[in-house]
């Protein structure tokens, strides 16, 4: 899987044919082996990158079109894959509904793209909704956020078995998440 570093470092760049043939980083990122021919580069690269390679006389330019961030995609798919444990089904607990998953997904992707935080745990909540947990290992803090099936949202920051702050999130303004993350990191 390509990292954002590789994407920025390589794909927004114009390469000479010679460079393409010999750039080990490029080879490793794209093919994992030495590039022997560049004539069929579009065919080989397109399904992988969703981008195109334009060829001029002496150089190649890779244009990235809507290149999906694999980490953001991972967050989205993990939220949509949430299932209720069987024992909760027996107790009549309802699984997270579609809208709670959608909102949890937007929040988690926003937190990832803005603050570069990846959830430590994504699961169903026994309170009926989606549960997201983030961990600040340096400060031993936990941020837990729940999006309920009635679309209310609450969050809590805990440190060493002590509650530091709680939030009822009613605002749609993403600024609230900046305040939460600030508290999580201070």
């Amino acid at each position: 899987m390509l990292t954002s570093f590789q994407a920025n470092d390589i794909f927004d760049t114009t390469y000479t044919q010679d460079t393409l043939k010999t750039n080990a980083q490029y080879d490793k990122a794209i093919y994992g082996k030495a590039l022997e021919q560049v004539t069929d580069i579009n065919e080989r690269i397109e399904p992988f990158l969703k981008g195109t390679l334009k060829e001029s006389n002496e150089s190649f330019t890779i244009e990235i079109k809507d290149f999906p961030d694999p980490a953001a995609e991972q967050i989205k798919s993990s939220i949509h894959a949430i299932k209720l444990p069987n024992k909760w089904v027996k107790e009549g607990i309802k699984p997270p509904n579609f809208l709670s998953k959608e909102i949890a997904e937007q929040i988690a992707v926003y937190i990832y793209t803005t603050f570069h935080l990846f959830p430590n745990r994504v699961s169903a909540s026994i309170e009926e909704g989606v549960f997201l947990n983030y961990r600040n290992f340096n400060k031993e803090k936990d941020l837990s956020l729940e999006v309920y099936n009635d679309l209310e949202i609450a969050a809590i920051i805990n440190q060493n078995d002590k509650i530091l702050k709680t939030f009822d999130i009613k605002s749609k303004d993403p600024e609230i998440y900046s305040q939460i993350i600030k508290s999580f990191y201070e």
Partner: protein
Amino acid sequence: MNRNYPNDLKIKNRKKLPTTEFMDNEKLFRAFDERDLDETDKIKLETVRFPDFSCDWSRFSKPGHIRYRINGSMTDGCYSFTVLTSRYKEIATPVHDPISDDKFPNYAHVEVRELSEGESIYFEPPKNRKRRTGSSKQRRLEYRQNMVNNLFIDLNPSEQL
């Protein structure tokens, strides 16, 4: 009834006790399994239910007795928290609620029920009282987190009694 069924749990003509009987340092037992633990072996916040959840009162039962209940398993673990924890910020209070069941009688059964603002911890909220509208999710989440912070694992899943 299973012939090994704990004698302590049988009703034996005993009466339900009032809320004032609960002592702050007494424990309330609750069942869990392996999937309720996180990677540091702590109970996951998202598995803790509130309000109106079932427990067993330590005055009349032992941790292993939580395995003897409807939908219980002989591999269940047990954690406990104090009555004082269950009354955190007077958000809820334990109510003695003996179960007279042919297969699973349980004199120790307790329901921790949510209090409305202004209600005393010695008030007994009725069973299945409708959740108050406007009851804050933040308040409930704080209650559950406080329970996770103050619980103690008495019996691990699959541990022999």
